[in-house]
């Protein structure tokens, strides 16, 4: 008999007051008892609507059934048939728009906590598994992966398991992509990402950091000089965009990428870090996505008294995960929705001292189907802040495209690929944000998996 409780087992979290002053993980994870209890809420539906909502098609009711009978290893095996990064995805997937959004239990009450269960299973495995990774029999073929984000790591892992000799080239000094430089420690502990990377190394994957493909080495050289037979590009979303309003180059205006990189990758929040970050009293973060939530919550943790999210649409249109919005509110982030900045104000010292905004109201739906925000007349006001973080999206980095023959991009600058991830050039595959524009970890991971399969078929067919 399933557990018919209308509510999900709540996620134990650090107290909001306490956590808004530290960088430790906010969500603490289910206990074994909670996980089993939550798993029993699943109805094991025949038509599996939840699975249709999962971008990589994890057999959700099957893994949940294993959790219900405390067979956590079995659950883990089912998940990892479709997903390579369960400990990451269980924490950062927008489940409410994916599996949980489709869950039958969610129609009348709360959906099954699928994400929380996924996280539990992955954490349980990481903690209890002693099985050493088996190094696969080498098949004698070399492949290269550009970028060590979720798409590249997944592609590398799958290929290594098939016996390929895999080398990852990463531009930064650390592997992980957005998982290490973007998403903060309190949402995704870096030790989890490190574990994934270590796992790949144990499979024999070579991770070469400090190498910018297109500068240090070109794609052509990877084929001609290094002897790789296929290449996967997972170079990510690229360059930050700015609004183009006056005052954006004043001191104290950051792109979210810069702000988060200083805090997360360079650990500017730690006293002993050599990398500086400006200490602020009041911070405005412009945007409504996960990136904006992360920047705002980091600003709070760095000691800002007032942190505002300035977003031009209403909360219903915010693309951020629901849980992040809720956590941000609990931590005291102030939401200024239906507000749009028109100018960053600065003093004689050229430091920011205010953000001039206008109020917006929702008009007719636009091409995205969301109601278009329009400016309310005479609604100008100034938000008293000394730091502004722009979190309004990215555009692809043209570096690889400009230095590689025969790879086509669309009008936005994203690589054009077929459904296997193959670009317009033979042997070159791509996936993740570099193809879709800024998206999600699970989609990037899925793209890495798809490409790995196609690369294997391509190399096998050739030999």
């Amino acid at each position: 008999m399933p557990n018919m409780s209308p509510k999900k087992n709540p996620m134990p979290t650090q107290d909001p007051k306490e956590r808004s002053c530290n960088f430790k993980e906010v969500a603490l994870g289910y206990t074994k008892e909670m996980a089993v209890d939550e798993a029993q809420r699943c109805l094991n539906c025949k038509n599996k609507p939840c699975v249709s909502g999962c971008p990589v098609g994890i057999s959700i009711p099957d893994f949940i059934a294993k959790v219900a009978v405390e067979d956590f290893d079995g659950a883990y095996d089912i998940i990892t048939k479709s997903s390579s990064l369960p400990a990451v995805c269980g924490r950062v997937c927008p489940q409410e728009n994916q599996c949980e959004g489709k869950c039958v239990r969610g129609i009348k009450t709360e959906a099954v906590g699928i994400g929380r269960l996924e996280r539990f299973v992955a954490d349980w495995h990481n903690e209890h598994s002693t099985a050493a990774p088996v190094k696969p029999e080498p098949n004698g073929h070399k492949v290269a992966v550009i970028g060590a984000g979720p798409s590249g790591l997944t592609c590398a892992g799958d290929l290594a398991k098939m016996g390929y000799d895999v080398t990852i080239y990463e531009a930064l000094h650390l592997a992980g992509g957005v998982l290490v430089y973007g998403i903060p420690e309190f949402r995704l502990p870096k030790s989890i990402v490190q574990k994934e990377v270590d796992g790949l190394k144990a499979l024999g994957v070579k991770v070469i950091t400090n190498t910018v493909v297109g500068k240090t080495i070109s794609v052509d050289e990877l084929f001609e000089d290094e002897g790789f037979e296929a290449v996967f590009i997972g170079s990510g979303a690229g360059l930050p965009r700015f609004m183009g309003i006056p005052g954006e180059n004043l001191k104290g205006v950051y792109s979210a990428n810069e702000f988060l990189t200083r805090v997360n990758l360079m650990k500017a929040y730690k006293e002993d870090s050599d990398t500086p970050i400006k200490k602020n009293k009041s911070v405005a973060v412009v945007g409504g996505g996960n990136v904006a939530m992360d920047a705002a919550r980091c600003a709070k943790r760095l000691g800002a008294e007032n942190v505002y999210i300035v977003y031009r649409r209403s909360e219903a249109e915010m693309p951020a995960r629901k849980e992040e919005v809720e956590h941000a509110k609990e931590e005291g982030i102030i939401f200024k929705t239906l507000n749009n900045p028109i100018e960053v104000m600065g003093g004689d010292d050229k430091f920011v001292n205010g953000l001039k905004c206008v109020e917006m109201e929702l008009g007719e739906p636009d091409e995205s189907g969301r109601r278009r925000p329009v400016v309310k007349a005479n609604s100008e006001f100034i938000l008293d802040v000394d730091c502004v973080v722009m979190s309004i999206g990215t555009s692809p980095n043209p570096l690889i495209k400009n230095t590689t023959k025969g790879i086509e991009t669309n009008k936005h600058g994203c690589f054009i690929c077929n459904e296997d991830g193959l670009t317009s050039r033979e042997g070159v595959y791509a996936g993740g944000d570099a193809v879709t524009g800024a998206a999600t970890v699970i989609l990037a991971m899925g793209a890495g998996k798809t490409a790995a399969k196609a690369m294997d078929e391509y190399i096998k067919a050739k030999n």
Partner: protein
Amino acid sequence: MYKIVRKKELNPTVTLMDIEAPMIAKKAEPGQFIILRVDEEGERIPLTVADFDREKGTVTIIFQIVGATTEKLNHKNEGEYIQDFVGPLGVASHTDGLKKVAVVGGGVGCAIAYPIAKKLHNLGCEVHSIVGFRNKDLVILEDEFKAVSDKLCMMTDDGSHGEKGLVTQALRKLIESGEKYDEVIAIGPLVMMKFVVAVTKEFGIKTVVSMNPIMIDGTGMCGGCRLTVGGETKFACVDGPDFDGFLVDFDEAMDRGTMYKPFERHKHEETCNLFAKEVK
């Protein structure tokens, strides 16, 4: 890890190092830069590729000790290693079609100007180098410049070496005496470049400047290195570091460069104290 194969003090505050980095040495061109981290907790800082040896696989950097990171770097010795070293980044300086060029270098900026002067010289271009330092003790690369210049003007603020005066005065004199340059390349402190541009604008001589804003990743990801050039936002690490001097907003760049002053001073003192303790 990247090995320091040679270390040489050029003056009390400027040090040269050859770093073993074969992949970078193979690709580097004048005008490009690298980013390094001295150790695990280190900051990422950009330094220009001052020279390279493709055969030996080494890249030369020349840095002025101005703060915590350069201080730490200077405490490393030959045979020791630095944590991270990535490049070559940025766009190489354009040298195509240049027949006669004035290269203006100020202070440690001379380290950045030297490889370009050398390349132009090797391409058969007539090179007039104008290099400026505060005083005699701070002069670097004099012989190197001599070897690649058809004319060398050595300037010091106090006249303790070469001629007394600023590089802009020497440049104006040369132009007014009838020298016709295809281009002026100015590399040094922002103020110096700003005033060089003020001179060359008067005479309508195309001027290229090398910008050095604060950087982190150096790959176009963070936007921290942005500048306004001709009214547009440019990222120095991917679009530069060379830009058309007539179009750069120098005042804004100077302001942005001072963003972390108090933090940097604090970190530098801390580092110095640390090293002082070690010595005791």
